[in-house]
């Protein structure tokens, strides 16, 4: 059992996913607790340029798994490419970003190497010499601290934005770039037919909106959108929504804000009946002024909001419309 930390980077079509660097930072932090080295690992085909970028960081080496079979990401391909090397190296920790791609393959990779899996961590704490991982539960309303039991490798995935990329330290000299030891044949279990854009070209572009009113599940139904529309009209705002509003068919898909929808950064973002799950927050936390209207004081949306109104949106939204009309004179 080694004491190293392996960091699984993510790339697509030759571009490094920004969370890869956040993961390197976390890897360095964990390596400081184990006294081991950080090994970065990159899978793909013809990804030399990315490897060079990564090698500028303080890592012991960049292991590149280059194969035609890895040109497209597939969970079987990635798992099979990594299983043997990780079994041999037996690192204390493996760190990966908690992205849609990682979540698709990392649990089975952990299973294949008999590792413990701690998904979506947002913090690392040392308590009495023990490492505890903090992760969100119940839609981010609470945080849990978890401990790992038993021997062997622990695989953690890190939540987007929870750790800063600027914490990743650069090295004094470029790290060596080496070929990852991989099986000769890497079988996949999925055939990619194509990558498609969701929706068509004439879909609403909320990224340029100045003011957005976001409707959440708390609005309560397609028939209850009237007051939201009235507020939007009073403010000259665009209407966006959280995912359940879209999934329930209250608004069309091109109004969705969040990790599976649009990323917006208006001057004013008013969230009504939105709890503030991370998948929503990543799409709007760059807004200049955020207002949250929610009846639940412990809703995580208040962590990113600048102004919060605690109460029933069915009363507050119409009152706000009236106050704005009045202020306009």
């Amino acid at each position, binding site marked *: 059992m080694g004491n190293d930390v392996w960091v699984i980077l993510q790339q697509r079509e030759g571009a490094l996913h920004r969370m890869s660097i956040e993961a390197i930072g976390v890897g360095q932090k964990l390596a400081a607790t184990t006294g081991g080295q950080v090994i970065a690992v990159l899978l793909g085909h013809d990804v030399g340029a990315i490897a060079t970028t990564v090698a500028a960081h303080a890592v012991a080496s960049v292991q590149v798994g280059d194969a035609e079979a890895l040109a497209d990401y597939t969970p079987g391909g990635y798992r099979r490419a990594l299983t043997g090397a990780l079994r041999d190296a037996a690192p204390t920790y493996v760190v990966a970003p908690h992205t849609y791609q990682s979540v698709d393959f990392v649990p089975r990779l952990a299973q294949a190497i008999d590792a413990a899996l701690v*998904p979506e961590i947002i913090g690392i704490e040392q308590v009495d010499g023990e490492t505890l991982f903090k992760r969100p539960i119940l839609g981010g309303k609470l945080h849990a*601290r978890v401990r790992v039991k038993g021997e062997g490798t622990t695989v953690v995935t890190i939540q987007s934005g929870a750790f800063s990329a600027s914490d990743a330290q650069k090295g004094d000299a470029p790290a060596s770039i080496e070929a990852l030891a991989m099986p000769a044949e890497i079988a996949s279990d999925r055939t990619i037919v194509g990558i498609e854009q969701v929706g068509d070209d004439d879909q609403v572009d909320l990224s340029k909106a100045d003011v957005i009113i976001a409707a959440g599940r708390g609005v309560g139904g397609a028939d209850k959108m009237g007051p939201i529309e009235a507020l939007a009209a009073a403010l000259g705002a665009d209407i966006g929504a959280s995912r359940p509003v879209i999934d329930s068919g209250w608004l069309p898909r091109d109004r969705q804000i969040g990790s599976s929808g649009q990323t917006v950064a208006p001057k004013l973002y008013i969230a009504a009946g939105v709890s503030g799950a991370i998948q929503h927050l990543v799409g709007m936390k760059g807004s200049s002024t955020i207002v949250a209207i929610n009846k639940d004081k412990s809703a995580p949306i208040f962590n990113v909001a600048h102004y919060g109104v605690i109460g029933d949106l069915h009363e507050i939204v119409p009152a706000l419309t009236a106050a704005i009309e009045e202020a306009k004179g």
Partner: protein
Amino acid sequence: MRIAVCVKQVPNTEARLRVAPDGRWIDQEDLSLILNENDTYALEEGLRLAEAHKGEVVVITLGPDGAKEALRKGLAMGAARAVHLKDDGFLDGDASAVGRALAAAVRHVEADLVLTGSQSDDVGYAATGSIIAGELDWPHAWLVMGLEIASADAGQATVVREMESGMNERAQVPLPAVIQVQAGINQPRYASLRGIMQAKRKPIDVLSPADLGLDASQVGAAGSRIEIVDVAFPDSGAGAQLLEGDDAAQLASQLVDKLRNEARVL
């Protein structure tokens, strides 16, 4: 085609939550429980496939006695029968322990396809379906927003998977497989009154670890690699100015004042 759909009961987070006295989970008292959101979509998807290909849906849950409500809901929506992994030994498992038990249940019912939600709304590991697939050595796909299976003996499924930044991946997955369904894939039906009445007569098989050939050390807390030490509310509203009160009109004019004169966005 026999389709196993894994469903889980989760706390309704709309309710006021309190940390339990032992600090390790939320207080279960006066907590209302609901079917995990994604699992409702998985159920609907399974029922549609069963209807299209003359198959049947078996709903499976692992949980305490009350979890049978999740099974009843599945039966009322149209599932043929249910399996309840009910035993103290099954409880408090991480994704590896729960996935191992559910995979054994899938083998037990001899399913040809497994549908799960992509994430649970309580612990949210987003991993259990993948673990089931690993145990069975079947392929899987996570975050599925579209699923087509041409016929009962098609041998493969076409899935549409969500990727980040508004892109989707279309891919073929050989069957049998575990498909982890994402909310929004369909519009789940409501259980009809007739469905609810019929559900009362449909069988629920209750199984223990031993019934599945599993040792106590492989399931529940004993079979898990991670455990929750404690849970807590984060410092909510740390940066926000909170406006509270009974008079909506007054709150609204306070807010407008702040947006105009402080934030200067109006």
